[in-house]
């Protein structure tokens, strides 16, 4: 539960953190207002009688769609690594990991 509700109802700074977006303060304010307006519109949903209604889990109900345990060709490694923002030999190279989920 985010702490510090802002005007408009969304703690944009907190949500931006969850979504890994480095918003500028101006963006936080702008989006806060715009999303607040959307939420006002969305609040109309609270009028709907949904107490005994099941949430749509799938648009077209199907079950047990699965595939056989048979190998299919993998991608060529060079094709993949060539487009890596940074690579080292056969690996993807990424910046130092600190304070992230381990």
């Amino acid at each position, binding site marked *: 539960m985010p702490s510090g509700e802002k005007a408009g109802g969304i703690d944009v700074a907190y949500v931006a953190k969850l979504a890994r977006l480095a918003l500028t303060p101006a963006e936080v304010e702008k989006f806060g207002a715009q999303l607040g307006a959307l939420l006002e519109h969305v609040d109309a949903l609270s009028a709907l009688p949904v107490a005994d209604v099941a949430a749509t889990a799938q648009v077209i109900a199907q079950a047990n769609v*699965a595939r056989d345990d048979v190998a299919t*060709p993998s991608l060529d490694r060079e094709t993949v690594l060539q487009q890596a923002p940074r690579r080292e030999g*056969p690996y993807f190279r990424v910046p130092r990991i600190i304070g992230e989920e381990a």
Partner: protein
Amino acid sequence: MSVTATAYEAVMGIECHVELKTETKMFCGCRNIFGAEPNTNVCPTCLGLPGALPVPNRVALELLVKAGLAFDAEIPAFSKFDRKNYFYPDMPKDYQISQFDMPLTQGGVVKYWLPDGTQRSCRLTRIHLEEDTGKSTHAGSRDGRIAGSTYSLVDFNRAGVPLMECVSEPDIRTAAEAVAYLEALKRTFVALGVSDVKMEEGSLRCDVNLSLRPVGATEYGTKAEIKNMNSFNSVGRAIESEIARQTAILEGGGRVVQETRGWDEAAGTTHTMRSKEQAHDYRYFPDPDLTPIEFAPQDVERLRRELGSLPYERLERLIETDKLRVEQAHQIIDTPGLYGYYAAAAGLSGKPQATLNFVLGDLSRLANETNTPVASCGVTPEALAEIVALTEGQTINSKTAKELLARVWVEGGSPKAIVAAEGLGQVSDAGAIDAIVAGVLAANEKTVEEYRAGKTKVMGFLVGQVMKASRGKANPTLAEERLRAHLA
């Protein structure tokens, strides 16, 4: 070597991640194999490329249900996949497809024996299916850990491998129980063909949640989660260390912090990894790219029939009926093919302990020496049963039995027939033995004097001499008996 928790008891739950032994990954057709060249078993789906979609591996679903059935878990009629959203460089989609509130199995119980023969059980909360992440190595730090590294390298071969997460209830109380529980899991998974369960290859990873509470209390204490153990023994050591650490804190009047701690094998301690207070908001929601999984009762029954004979049932027979020691029973079950061999031989001989002694003793030794498994050696269960009968019936002595085994190992054949044909039966006639005994005593006057002077240990030497004189055929028990009689 347990650390005694003074007034406290340790309460533990274990969470295991077990890689399933399927041909291909959980949601795509890339190969599921260990040790391949980095980033060669990858495709749009397991790399999280734009536009790719997951499709579940049917065999993975069935293996997981079988694992649950082996522990009497319930298979709900309806199960689904959910997205667990978080960012990490080894996560191709920055969400993991997992199961949140409707897993494939619920409940169940793992029953096991401690070395001293006590039976214990640990309930399961659930077993669910998810996909594994890629593997990262960290460059620039002394020890390859994240802390102090300057950058990381990621290999996505492992990303998308099917992973079974087994969560236990906090029913475990000691390091020994934890190890025995893990071994019971492993034993069953290997028997089912569900996984190789090799901690050193990463196909089993486990975390222990450990808290202490005063003996007799019902509330749980604050727990710490321990990670980074790479073998079952390591788990045991980590638990002992953590129990000691938490005990010291509580006895000192302090409070245990809820956190994740990593086990440092070299240092023999755990250290803080991150505070679990900083709980992550995973924003679970049902994965719209996947359909629910609904196992009908007849499918569940079919899978139950395919389980075959389970380790627990076999152990129960070995320990409770055949009265084997727990350690011996485990060795029989854990060596491929050995149970079948033993069961056949013991069934024929009617003498479980004697059969076991040969199987775990001489036969296993020969197996090691010749690099041939007992199950496929030249000594058939029938042959072994004959040797047991010959030995128990005092027809041959143990030395002869050993020689016979070694011979039949190589040549095959019927020990009974060989003994009869070559007259290998031990000499059990008192008169014949007496004659030999007389000769030995006469030839070893000095030793006789030592014996009479009180050095009774030399009896062994004298018996050996009788065996030598009889070319190994004397009944050693009778030999000793007659020697004593003569020396009395």
